[in-house]
């Protein structure tokens, strides 16, 4: 008797009998990782999702990137914490892709691996003397004041200079400028790292230059952050009115872009409301149309930065792409400073066995499905390997961007599940999932920290914070974190 049953339904009924939940590993517990886990659990009720992170503390940049004076932006961790409460979801802290476990091992253990580990490195300018002391990436500086254990010893010198130059005009640039210029008293009750408060209290920095290669129309920051920095108490803000002149191309850009339009309006208003600078007052200077050409070494302090040489630029439309780009004019100008923060973009780090586009600093993919290196004319995908977040799109966007990014990646995963890509007809072909991970970590003597361990850290940080009238006193040393987590 011939019964026609779609193959898909057959395999589904097999999987029901074989009790074969989809085994998923998400690498990275920031917004990309958590939104992915949440959506996988919603779409695939019996899926088992393990989230791994190299830190014992979850939440990625929500914990280590969002500025201390932006607590409302961190509220999303409540939602993320609820994801782990699902019995099908587990968190494994202190498990590092590349050192604790390799990508190929993960792919052997899980049906689906989603890489959402973000971008933990920096774009480099590639200009002379970039290695001078006193030059940091904004990422390092942000990690430092946010108590990330990798940068707790950064010890930036804020005392031997009164001027800092921040390269870049995005929100991270504004964050670091704001932390340097806000009255320190306003930061002491936040979750800022105590070592940063101490340094800021003794800081001699009074002048910050925010420098962009192009003009105010192209500035990448957004209105909220700009409004905030312009509203700092007793801060003298300087913007050259000449820089606000718009080309026809600028007008066109503003017409079509609400974000840039409102940012430009805020900058124009700030330029014309020129309040005279007073002595001892902190100053913020917006500098446009300047491209860094080289760093200048101090004559007194060997090996230390003393200034930045900039080439003046004009903005022109690039013929092929239609983009507005900065073109050098051959005229130069120096800004003296003892601290430089490069806020020119983050960059992802590749791991063994992962196809990687080194030029763009991300993983080649289509809708989150990782493209094989061997892909020629016909697209070939790495089976069961997906990406989400900055690793997939490059280091742009906001927390909410990952919401949609995760939706797209999970839609690809779901399509592949429905195509039968992960269906096993016999139990011997099933991936071990969580049990496999536990066995492997055990065999290597790697101590992982479950979500409960983070809850202990959370409790301790809150408790210590209470004693200092802070919302939280972060544990910033690896050893301390691991000790409290293990208690």
């Amino acid at each position, binding site marked *: 008797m011939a019964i026609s049953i779609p193959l898909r339904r057959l395999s589904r009924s097999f999987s029901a009998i074989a009790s074969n939940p989809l085994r998923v590993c998400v690498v990275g517990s920031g917004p990309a990782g958590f939104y992915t886990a949440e959506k996988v659990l919603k779409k695939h009720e019996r899926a088992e999702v393990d989230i791994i992170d190299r830190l014992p503390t979850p939440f990625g940049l929500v914990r280590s990137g969002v500025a201390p004076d932006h607590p409302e932006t961190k509220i*999303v961790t*409540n939602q993320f914490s609820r994801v782990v409460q699902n019995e099908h979801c587990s968190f494994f802290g202190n498990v590092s892709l590349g050192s604790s476990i390799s990508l190929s091992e993960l792919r052997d253990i899980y049906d689906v691996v989603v890489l959402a580990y973000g971008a933990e490195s920096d774009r480099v300018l590639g200009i002379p003397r970039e290695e001078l002391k006193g030059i940091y990436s904004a990422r390092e500086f942000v990690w430092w004041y946010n108590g990330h254990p990798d940068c707790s010893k950064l010890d930036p010198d804020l005392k031997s200079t009164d001027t800092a130059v921040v390269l870049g005009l995005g929100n991270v640039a504004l964050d670091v400028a704001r932390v340097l210029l806000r009255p320190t008293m306003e930061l002491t009750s936040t979750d800022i790292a105590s070592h940063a408060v101490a340094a800021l209290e003794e800081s001699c920095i009074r002048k910050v230059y925010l420098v962009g290669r192009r003009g105010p129309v192209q500035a990448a920051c957004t209105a909220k952050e700009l*409004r905030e920095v312009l509203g700092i108490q007793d801060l003298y803000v300087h913007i050259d009115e000449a820089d606000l002149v718009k080309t026809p191309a600028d007008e066109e850009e503003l017409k079509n872009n609400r*974000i840039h339009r*409102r940012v430009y309006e805020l900058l124009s208003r700030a330029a014309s409301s020129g309040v005279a600078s007073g002595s001892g007052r902190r100053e913020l200077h917006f500098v446009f149309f300047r491209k860094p050409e080289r760093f200048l070494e101090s004559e007194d302090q060997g090996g230390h930065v003393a200034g930045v040489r900039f080439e003046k630029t004009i903005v022109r439309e690039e013929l092929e792409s239609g983009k507005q780009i900065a073109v050098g004019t051959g005229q130069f100008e120096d800004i003296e400073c003892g601290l430089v923060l490069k806020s020119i973009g983050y960059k992802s780090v590749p791991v063994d066995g992962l196809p990687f586009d080194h030029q763009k600093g991300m993983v080649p993919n289509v809708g989150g499905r990782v493209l094989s290196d061997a892909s020629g004319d016909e697209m070939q995908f790495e089976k069961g390997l997906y990406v989400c977040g900055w690793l997939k*799109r490059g280091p742009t*966007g906001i927390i*909410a961007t990952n919401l949609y990014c995760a939706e797209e990646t999970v839609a690809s995963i779901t399509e592949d599940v429905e195509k039968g890509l992960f269906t096993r007809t016999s139990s011997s072909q099933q991936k071990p999932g969580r049990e496999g991970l536990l066995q492997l970590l055990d065999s290597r003597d790697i101590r992982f920290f479950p979500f409960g361990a983070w809850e202990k850290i959370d409790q301790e940080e809150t408790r210590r914070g209470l004693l200092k009238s802070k919302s939280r006193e972060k544990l910033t040393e690896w050893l301390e974190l691991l000790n409290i987590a293990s208690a």
Partner: protein
Amino acid sequence: MFTLKLSKLGAHAIKNCLKAQLASTARTLRVPLCQNENLLPLIHQRYSTAAPDKAFQKQNEEKEKISVTFVDKDGEEKHIRVPVGMSMLEAAHENDIELEGACEGSLACSTCHVIVMDPNHYNKLEDPTDEENDMLDLAFGLTETSRLGCQIIAHPDIDGIRLALPAATRNFAVDGYKPKPH
């Protein structure tokens, strides 16, 4: 920062209270909404009608809850009743409607973005503050009648409001970057 928010909430509540009163008594007489809050009680007195008890009771019940319809990205509709004074975000969550609210109503995200489908209802809402506009800047699929769900507060003026949940867009970058086609 918190006291500022509380006082804004307070001012908002007062405005809504006055508007609600005005709406119920203006059933027979169309009265233009007065900008000056001091004059509103006077207008109320001038045009209020002595309504029979039963009708007045019914008006009270209707005042308490309004009808709201959420339309999801697939076009599916869900009709709910929302007490006056509750935000649309809260109402959505109470009725298991999938409206994200990452910052839980603190004006620090744009995930509760909704599209007000009827321009008349949109116009009845108070203008968004700078803070809300800053967040709307970042909302995906922003339209002329977009608002944050946590900032739309139920009141009789918007009874029957229809709110569309924006479709997940392909272009989800915030800084104007358009992903290159493959």
